[in-house]
């Protein structure tokens, strides 16, 4: 099963191909390319997309509460968020929808026009399997299991201009998510401070020199190229001295793994390392039991999400003009609560878009209503916007992508665009 990915060994810019015929090792050229671009300020102004994946199927109806829809209250006796104005009530957005009160830190961003919500968005594939649905959303090919790479990686692979840094694609976490896997290099970093070899500086430097020397001489191939990226990344990280990039403007990140992930992504951006795609994920959204309403299990997770996103926006300040944060989740949850004061796997969900050219202050997407006749399989919020439409609009409108056909093979957006970016 060939994935049709580009050969990772050919890691050179177009103009340098001629030099290959002279017998120069492509890895040498890559290093020269890195060196040239490391001039300070060279990466400032680069557009960035941060994807935040809420794994476990977040209840979109609790994120963006349809307080104007009576079915919401008829079918969620124990877990509905009260109407605006009541104690613990939703924070009204536009008269029909409200923000979950735990997301209060995001309300000023909505009012300022930098945050938009998209409702009833999701996948055309009906699977309610977490694993399948997450893979479909990350591979960008719903319904197709054999896709070995992700939509974000395919974007990086096809948007060729900035192939001069190992930090184009960075996921915070122990493994590279499917969305960032593929031909284009991408880093999975658990902890930027600890990225590299361990040991006292003298020992560590000795080891780095040794490994680098061994791998430089190795036959070209994935192992050699990956290690080259690794050491280049380690070097640049050390030179950038990320520890020096404290949160600005008084931003206070939650102490949670998500808060720390957003803090690190902000550091990578501020250090001008050439980041284009960042990725973080949070778990804990699979609220089958005891979901809670204004307070409770789900509210606690939403508080963490809002804290991380708001701190990130504060930290970056004016640089948010170049950065879009997009939340996503594999599907939503049932309209009706279940016998355990929770919800089961559903279909349509809500996603948030923040920063950059986002035309915020609106809830986008065609709302299908919660009327039983309008539900997916009679039980779930329907999907009226294919997630690929939303993602595609952001790639084009914010990152200037030219060829969505390569990013979402087999898909052509139909119907009116959301108009999420300017």
């Amino acid at each position, binding site marked *: 099963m060939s994935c049709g990915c580009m050969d*990772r060994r050919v890691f050179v810019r177009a103009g340098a191909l001629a030099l290959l015929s002279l017998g120069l090792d492509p890895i040498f050229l890559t290093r020269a390319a890195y060196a040239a671009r490391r001039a300070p300020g060279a990466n400032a102004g680069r557009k960035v997309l941060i994807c935040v994946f809420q794994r476990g199927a977040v209840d979109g109806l609790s994120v963006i509460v349809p307080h104007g829809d009576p079915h919401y209250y008829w079918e969620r006796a124990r877990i509905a968020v009260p109407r605006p104005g009541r104690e613990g009530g939703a924070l009204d957005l536009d008269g029909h929808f409200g923000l979950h009160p735990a997301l209060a830190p995001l309300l000023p961003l909505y009012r300022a026009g930098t945050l938009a919500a998209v409702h009833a968005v999701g996948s055309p594939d009906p699977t309610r399997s977490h694993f399948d649905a997450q893979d479909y959303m990350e591979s960008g090919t719903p319904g197709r299991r054999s896709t070995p790479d992700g939509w974000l990686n395919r974007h990086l692979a096809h948007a060729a201009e900035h192939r001069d840094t190992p930090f184009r694609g960075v996921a915070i976490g122990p493994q590279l998510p499917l969305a960032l*896997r593929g031909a284009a290099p*991408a880093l999975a970093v658990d902890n930027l401070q600890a990225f590299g*070899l361990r*040991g006292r500086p003298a020992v560590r430097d000795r080891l780095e020199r*040794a490994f680098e020397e061994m791998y430089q001489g190795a036959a070209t191939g994935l192992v050699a190229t*990956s290690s080259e990226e690794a050491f280049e990344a380690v070097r640049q990280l050390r030179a950038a001295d990320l520890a020096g990039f404290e949160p600005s403007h008084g931003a206070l990140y939650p102490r949670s793994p998500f808060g720390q992930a957003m803090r690190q992504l902000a550091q990578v951006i501020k250090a001008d390392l050439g980041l284009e795609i960042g990725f973080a994920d949070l*778990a804990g959204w699979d609220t089958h039991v005891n979901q809670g309403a204004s307070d409770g299990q789900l509210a606690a997770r939403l508080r963490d999400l809002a804290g991380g996103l708001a701190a990130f926006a504060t930290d970056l300040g004016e640089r948010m003009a170049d950065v879009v944060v997009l939340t996503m989740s594999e599907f939503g949850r049932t309209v009706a609560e279940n016998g355990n004061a929770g919800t089961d796997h559903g279909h349509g969900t809500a996603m948030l878009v923040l920063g950059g050219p986002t035309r915020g202050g609106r809830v986008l997407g065609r709302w299908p209503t919660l009327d039983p006749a309008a539900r997916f399989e009679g039980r779930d919020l329907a999907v009226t916007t294919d997630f690929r439409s939303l993602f595609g609009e952001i790639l084009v409108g914010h990152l200037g992508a030219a060829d969505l056909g390569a990013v979402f093979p087999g898909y052509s957006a139909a119907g009116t665009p959301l108009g999420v970016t300017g």
Partner: protein
Amino acid sequence: MPSTRALLIALGIAAIPGLAALPAPARAQAQSSRDSAVHLVRRITFGPRPGDVDRVVAMGLDAYLEEQLHPERLRDTAAEHYVDRLAIMHRSTADLARIYAAEQQARLAQRRMAPDSARGAAPDRDPARAEARRYAGELQQAAVARAVLSDRQLDEVMVDFWTNHFNVFLAKGLDRVLTPDYIERTIRPHALGRFADLLVATARSPAMLFYLDNAQSVAAGARPPGAARRRPGAAPPRRSQGINENYARELLELHTLGVDGGYTQQDVINVARIFTGWSIRRGPLGPVFTFNAWAHDRGTKVVLGQEYHEGGEREGLDLLRALARHPPTMRHVSAKLCARFVSDDPPDGCIDAAVHAWEQTDGDIRAVVRAIIRSPEFWAPEHRAAKLKTPLEFVVSAVRAVGGRPDTTLALAQIVGRLGEPLYLQSAPTGYAERADAWANSGALLQRFNTAVALAAGRLPGVQFDPDAVIPSSDDRDTMIAAANRAILEGTASGTTLDAIRRQVTDVYDLAAARTLVIGLALGSPEFQRR
């Protein structure tokens, strides 16, 4: 340099698939018999231990291959003793079901008491949850320990292969209870047996029936007798919505024909209809296979031109046996085996040899593997040291190379997980990948370097080894480096690697530190990442 195949043909030894003898020293090319032994050991084991290659050279490649192809003739006390000490090996599925039910209760109770806390807080404080988590760790550790300690190396390699080919996800609901039995009694006994038997065993296993949702697949409109509520534990507590295609699709796409195997969506639907009724019930020994006749689709189904009707459970068995002999299945599975043993992009000659053996023996896995190992492609120079080790292969081969042993903790399996391959925790039915591009990323490589250095320094949790047994201490740096090259890299270190190591130890005055550095750099070298 002529390829092995060209040489064999030139010498009048036709490369008849399955019949070519292993290259004897005189007939192989410039490469010595020792090199061939190294290559063979690296491919059919999890890596040589000190002395392994010498033993293979002494007994001869043919004899060694046959020894490994007949694990039942080998005593395996070290691995058996280790695994026997793990509590999970003595828990029945019913025991596990009880333990996990208790864990669920504990978690529910905690959530009710402290609804604001993040999910999964402090599992170790509750004994039920601690026990449940320990069993998952023990299952992983059993696999890693067997890979390190077993003398039945090829068997363990095949178990790893089939575990990925017939993947189940340990963390999915009931599979936490069902996976141990699946590994011990479904996968392991059939790893070198007949493919059809293995296929049927997986299809009937509660672990697979649950993982791919077939247990809840019922014919459209079917109702249980008396329309009573299903007993808890007998099937997943979800409203049955008719036919579930998940297993049918993966059976065709992943387990047998392959994505290009020539089946249609209608075939998938009909296969799903055939398997309606294949489900799970709670027995005295825990969840077991059951056939629910009431749930079975009674209509006629045509799959790949074959008609099935009025056969009940028999339809599924007939279908599985037909799939096992279908040419696309032979090609698809043979290609995967060649990818494991020869190259990420398996050469056609190797696949042809495997398929031929499959046809001749009606799918005897032992014969197919033998044909692959005897094919000229296996021995071709361009395929030697061509495979990148997976995290499991890297960690196990490193421990074996230094003559190490896993200790009594579960830490070694955790190391494999941290390098990216937590065993039995691949959520996708494709299993862990075979190809290098899944494993070669910068973060992963840095982790391997750290692991290599920690292991060499005796600081890697989960493993013990004696450095004196690997490289005798010497005040001559070159002697130490040469010894490491022999012991750990079987003499395959490149000039660059040797120079790099030499450069780093020249000014290290402490002998022990120098030796640690030499071992760590050897284990982290590019040569050691390949097999």
